[in-house]
């Protein structure tokens, strides 16, 4: 028997319906593409087929399947970005106009940016460090993002900016080394676990902080 006995019968019985949902969703997406003559709509409809792929992978529902969802999602995003880039460059070549992919600066005037209390950022960062891992990095990065966008302390020197980007890269390497330890020396799993969790924490947090700095610089630019 493949499925362990601790898994409830209901969970096992839901696999086939979830599989059908995925296949039918994909089929509906394909029908939509076949009716559609507009290229942009076809591209957006293709994304529905990609989501149906995620449904099928998620239907398996084991921890290995969870590890398969993330690469599937990344592949999906990379493909849709590559294709939309091709669509844009083709349209630009047809019409002769140039356009950037991010039409910045955009005006974002919200009162909450100037009135929100500082300690929210502190709480988020502390909670993120406590969580560690990807989730913790996202939470701590959200805190940095909040601080950077809400507090209008301008003029972060370009050197600091590049330094943060460098730290992010080094943390990424620590994460990879931690994963390598899992594969080549499984008895050192605790070291590998800590290296990868702290590495991804610093990496995600600093990346989101960088996004915040870039967004703020763009917000200020009129």
């Amino acid at each position, binding site marked *: 028997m*493949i499925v362990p006995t601790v898994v409830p019968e209901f969970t096992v019985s839901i*696999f086939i319906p979830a*599989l059908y949902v*995925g*296949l039918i969703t*994909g089929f509906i*997406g*394909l029908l939509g*593409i076949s009716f559609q003559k507009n*290229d942009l709509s*076809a*591209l957006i409809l*293709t*994304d529905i*087929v*990609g989501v*149906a*792929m995620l449904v*099928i*992978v998620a*239907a*398996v529902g*084991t921890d*290995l*399947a969870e590890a*398969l969802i993330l*690469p*599937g999602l990344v*592949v*999906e995003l*990379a*493909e*849709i970005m*590559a*294709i939309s*880039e*091709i*669509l844009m*460059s*083709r349209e630009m*070549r*047809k019409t002769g106009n140039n356009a950037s992919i991010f039409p910045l600066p955009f005006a974002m005037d919200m009162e909450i940016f100037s009135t929100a209390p500082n300690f929210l950022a502190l709480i988020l960062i502390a909670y993120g460090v406590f969580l560690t891992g990807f989730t913790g990095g996202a939470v701590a990065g959200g805190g940095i993002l909040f601080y950077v966008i809400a507090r209008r302390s301008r003029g972060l020197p370009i050197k600091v900016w590049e330094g943060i980007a460098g730290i992010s890269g080094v943390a990424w390497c620590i994460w990879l080394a931690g994963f390598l330890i*899992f*594969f*080549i020396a*499984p008895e050192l799993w605790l070291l590998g676990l800590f290296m990868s969790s702290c590495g991804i924490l610093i990496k995600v947090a600093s990346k989101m902080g960088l996004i915040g700095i870039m967004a703020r610089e763009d917000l200020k630019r009129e």
Partner: protein
Amino acid sequence: MDISTLGGQILGQIPLGDIVLYLTPFNLFMFAGALIFTALIAMSRTETQIEAEFGSLKDNEVKVGLEEFKIRRFLAIVCGLATAGAMITGDLFNFTLFVALIGIVNIGIVSAVKQIDVLNAAFQYGLIAMIASLPLFGGAALVLASTGTLSLLQLSTLASTTPMMYFASLLLLMGIAGETGVAPFYATKAEMFRTPGSPFILIIHLSSLLVIVRAIEILLIINKPF
């Protein structure tokens, strides 16, 4: 079907945790072939296309600029390495990921060209590749669901094949055909080869051929028809 019947004597295994690579002469030959071709591409320069102009006696030269040449060479090397990885891997999901990477990189190689026809073909091929990721990943996930493993070594030791595994390998075949753009989907890809820059375009062909050969081995390992 037995691994040693398909690929010859098993020369060794590289255990990396639960991902176990196995080395057979068949795998090693294709791995080395992909690496040698990648090295040749990394050293080569692009061709320059000469087209006769209509209505005059002049020639039209289509050259590849230095910037575009560098991007294309990088993507062609990535494509070659992904092909080599797909040849040697012993894990079904790693194989599908390498195939998906080949699909993305193939679009990238032609994405910087200036001909509208080629961009149109790349767009159509990209749509097919993206649609094909549903059967590709779905097939791998169904193999995992019906057997509980993704390792090819363990799949080859299974005693029987369930109908779900037949369905999964059918999906897998559809996904690989769409992602690499072979026979039923070739029409979307054919126009892409009209762009200048010959050796980098060739890796698109080579990768799809090698991946199909390896995919047949994997499907035979899963299904054991004989």
